[in-house]
């Protein structure tokens, strides 16, 4: 049987590697929920599960300027946290606790990634720890930074601290209580069944009843009817002109009477072991049971990411498939050899003269001698080079077009544009080494065709004929036939269709017979097609690699882990 701690650890492990990289609508929320949940697991759930009897952490959270620090100072009757008129005043959270609980809050496991500082003044980041005897043993008061100033680092820290709290002391003011941001936190508190109370501070003198009634209504509408409200009226410093008649701050702290109720609430949390356990259990239970709903948010975001990636992948795949099909079409139509050539010049030299050279190639002796005398390559090779350079141009153009259309299509979506932002320069062009790879593939293909000819020339007569023609001659003839032959037609018809390739076709047919030639050419063609598809796959893999580096994570594992967590917790609760 798996314990809650194990299940939680596993959930954390599957949550940690998730990254929501694409700028989709659901991503910001998903990332926020994920980060917060990860933080809560580390800061609160695991430490709390490890020690249910550890002191309570009460976090004072709320808007900037709501007077959290003033209330903290007033509660303990000492200036432990810096209150001030500049917003936001508190940047370093201050934790006040009884000397008895000092060691737990110093390194007891709660909020493990925040360094602690002690002494007179907070130093740098982390939590500043202050010991004060007026705080009852068994509880720590944490003054958190604000949740709504322009300092976004403050919000993140505040959210983290509130996530780690056993109980919230939520501070707002008469002019703040209808703000949108605090209500997001209040709703979050409701979802997690956190033990909470609201302090409404800075109420204009005499307006307490109206404000408290209105806030009470709003809380009820939002399903938080049982939350208690403490009203604190505006208190001013003596020198302020508006201070006349109003309550006055004493040494920057509220009068004792104003915070009496709050102190009683804090005391009530730990009045007895039963009430203490109740607070711990209910907040812990609420936090754990809120996890599936939060995981849902992350999972939805994950699903959106996966769908967007899939769409991008399909988009690039379609473009490369189209390019390959277009290339295949062009090869099938015999454009490398035949009349659809831009100009008959090219056709003449590229094909007729080429055929001439091939015919010369048939009498190999002459070709060899010519080759020796002139130092030029054997005509067969020249013919092959010509074919290959034509093919290379086609391949490069189609790879180019596929790349640029993919980039254009991706760029038109926010997700695609974000992925492309991480791409290296030149992703919209073919890879730099495409020509070399094509060369290699064509050389391999040439060898494969020769091997084919060699294998198929089963009987000795054929071998003998082949030898007089030259294995190379036959090979090149097959290669030509591949480009000349259109799908389905017989060798002879293809020969006619291909016009200038007729000679090679006739030649082949004479050596092997029509059926054998057809098979031979088909096999050679399939082989070429496969090689070209492989080349395009490598081209496209650049886009796949980009997508992979943006992949978000596994949603199924997450869901399973969260389900198992709840099962384990329910079982432990029952036991």
């Amino acid at each position, binding site marked *: 049987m798996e314990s809650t701690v194990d299940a939680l650890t596993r959930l954390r492990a599957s949550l940690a590697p998730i990254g929501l990289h694409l700028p989709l609508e659901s991503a910001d929320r998903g990332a926020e929920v994920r980060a917060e949940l990860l933080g809560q697991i580390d800061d609160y759930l695991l430490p709390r599960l490890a020690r249910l009897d550890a002191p309570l952490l009460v976090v004072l959270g709320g808007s900037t300027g709501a007077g959290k620090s003033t209330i903290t100072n007033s509660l303990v009757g000492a200036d432990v946290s810096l209150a001030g008129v500049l917003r936001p005043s508190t940047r370093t959270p201050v934790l006040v606790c009884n000397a008895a609980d000092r060691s737990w809050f110093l390194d007891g496991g709660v909020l493990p990634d925040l360094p602690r500082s002690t002494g007179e003044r907070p130093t740098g980041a982390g939590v500043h720890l202050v010991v004060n005897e007026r705080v009852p043993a068994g509880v720590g008061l944490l003054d958190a930074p604000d949740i709504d100033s322009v300092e976004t680092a403050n919000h993140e820290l505040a959210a983290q601290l509130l996530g780690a709290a056993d109980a919230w002391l939520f501070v707002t003011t008469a002019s703040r209580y209808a703000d*949108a941001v605090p209500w997001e936190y209040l709703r979050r508190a409701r979802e997690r069944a956190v033990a909470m109370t609201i302090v409404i501070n800075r109420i204009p003198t005499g307006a307490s009843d109206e404000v408290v009634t209105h806030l009470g209504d709003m809380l009820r509408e939002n399903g938080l009817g049982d939350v208690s409200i403490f009203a604190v009226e505006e208190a001013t410093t003596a020198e302020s002109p508006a201070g006349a008649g109003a309550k006055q701050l004493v040494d920057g702290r509220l009068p004792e009477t104003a915070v009496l109720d709050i102190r009683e609430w804090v005391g009530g949390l730990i009045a007895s072991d039963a009430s203490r356990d109740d607070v711990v259990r209910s907040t812990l239970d609420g936090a754990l049971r809120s996890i599936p709903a939060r995981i849902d948010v992350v999972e939805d975001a994950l699903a959106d990411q996966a769908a967007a990636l899939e769409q991008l992948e399909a988009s690039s795949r379609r473009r490369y498939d189209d390019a390959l099909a277009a290339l295949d079409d062009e090869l099938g139509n015999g*454009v490398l050899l035949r009349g659809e050539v831009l100009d008959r010049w090219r056709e003449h030299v590229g094909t007729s003269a080429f055929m001439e050279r091939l015919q010369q190639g048939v009498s190999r002796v002459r070709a060899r001698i010519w080759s020796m005398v002139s130092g030029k390559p054997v005509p067969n090779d020249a013919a092959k080079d010509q074919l290959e350079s034509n093919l290379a141009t086609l391949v490069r*153009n189609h790879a180019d077009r596929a790349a640029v259309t993919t980039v254009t299509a991706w760029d038109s979506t926010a997700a695609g544009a974000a992925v492309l932002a991480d791409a290296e320069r030149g992703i919209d062009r073919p890879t730099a080494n495409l020509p070399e790879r094509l060369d290699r593939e064509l050389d391999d293909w040439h060898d494969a065709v020769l091997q084919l000819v060699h294998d198929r020339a089963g009987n000795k007569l054929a071998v003998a004929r082949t030898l007089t023609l030259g294995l190379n001659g036959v090979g090149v003839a097959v290669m030509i036939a591949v480009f000349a032959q259109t799908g389905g037609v017989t060798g002879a018809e293809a020969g006619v269709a291909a016009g200038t390739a007729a000679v090679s076709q006739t030649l082949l047919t004479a050596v092997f017979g029509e059926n054998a030639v057809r098979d031979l050419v088909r096999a050679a063609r399939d082989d070429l097609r496969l090689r070209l598809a492989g080349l395009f796959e490598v081209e496209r893999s650049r886009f796949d690699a980009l997508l992979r580096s943006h992949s978000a994570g596994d949603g199924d594992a997450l869901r399973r882990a969260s389900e198992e967590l709840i099962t384990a917790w329910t079982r432990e609760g029952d036991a």
Partner: protein
Amino acid sequence: MSRSATPSISERIDALQQALDLAAPHVGEDAVVAGHAVVDKARSRMGHGTDHTVIALAGSTGVGKSSLFNALVGEDVSAVGVRRPTTGVAHAAVFGDGGERLLDWLAIERRHHVTSGDGKRAGLILIDLPDFDSTEASNRAEVDRLVQLVDGMIWVTDPQKYADQALHDHYLRPLAGHGEVLHFVINKIDTVPNAERDAVIADFERRLADDGIADPDIHTTSVLATEGLDAVDRLVASVVATRRTVLDRLEADVRDFARSIAPGGDTDGVSKKDRRALVERLGHAAGADDAGDIVAAQHRKDARMAMGWPPVRLLERVRRRHPISELPRASASAVARSEIDLALRDVAEAASAGLTPPWPGALRDVAADRSADLTSRLTSVTQDTARDATARPRWWTPVAWLQRLVTLVAAIGALWLLVVAILGGFLQLDTDPLLIDTPGWDWIPLPSLMVIGGLLAGLLIALVVRIPVAVAASRRGARVRRRLLDRVGTVADETVLADIGRVLSERDEIAAQLAIASARSR
């Protein structure tokens, strides 16, 4: 573009309009739509004239916006209360006459005509906006809408809320370019001890500077204690008196947008080197290299036909048509087309190095659009050039006659021998007198010498002329290739390079118009 005076608002709007028209085919649809919205808004606001100035009071919930509004109006127009949020819809106070059409345009229903006062503020329309940070999302939508339309804004905040994210990130940062028409009031200043007020103001100023608003106009008030109201009152009066706010607002709108789409980066266009590479590749696609070879082959063949050894000539005549007779027809090959496409993309990429989007894409598209046109034009260039290259050199004529002469000699000799053979062989006549000895060469009869000598001389001539013919042929081929590349260059200049140049100059013109639209005034 140098102008002595700064452009007027209508010149700015027209310049932006022109830039948008030019940029429409190249920049994204969103930007064009947004740009037209700016132009339309500016024109319709100008249509209502500058007699009225619309100033909005904007601020968070609970900072005392409505109290300040009432104080400025001098009557209790907006509801004030401790319950939050209070103001739900925008509320206008009109000082003096008119302004109805302007308020219709702003779609503000709740209007209050201020009758009291000294008339100094006639022409002012003061608007109390709803809050933007309460739980009421519809309030925020109304603020978002009106913030785009009003002329000037007074942002009201208080010591509690002056650093709120909702204020800075959502509103002030995007309005950073509108500094001239933004004013700030920190209300409830009485809640801060006197000694610390300057620190609060300085902190607010620092936050505004972070948003991009330099030297902000900040006032402090306390409506409850009627502190600082005079200063705000004077501010409002001066805004109305100068009548600059309408123009400043629209200028800032136009300037902000113009800067957002101003083309970035720089390019020298297509360099000489890039042009040469383009022409080479287009030439290759058009078959310039092959054309050279074929013209050379044709030349050699023509030479053989004219001056070649007779037996070979005979063979040549039956064997093949002239290479040059197979002149190209206009048609397209996938290979050539591919080559052209690749060359076009490369030249567009080279020309757009250093440019920011969308210009590289614009150049790529305009170059790619020329692909089909170029293909057909290159085909005809090749045909025309090759046809021009078929004239035969003059020196061939005497050599041809010489070849004919020696052929004739050999033919006469052969005929002679034939006659001898017929007379001697068939008719058994004495043919000795016919076989005249060659003078000086007793061992060979004259007709035999004529046959052998004629044939050998012919072969010799054919072999000797081969050398100059080969040289001339390759020269001619090279010349054809060169001439072809020249013409391809002309075609490239007229088509793709002209288009690239046109787009780049359009880009320059857009930049110039946007510079007018966003020129700093004063």
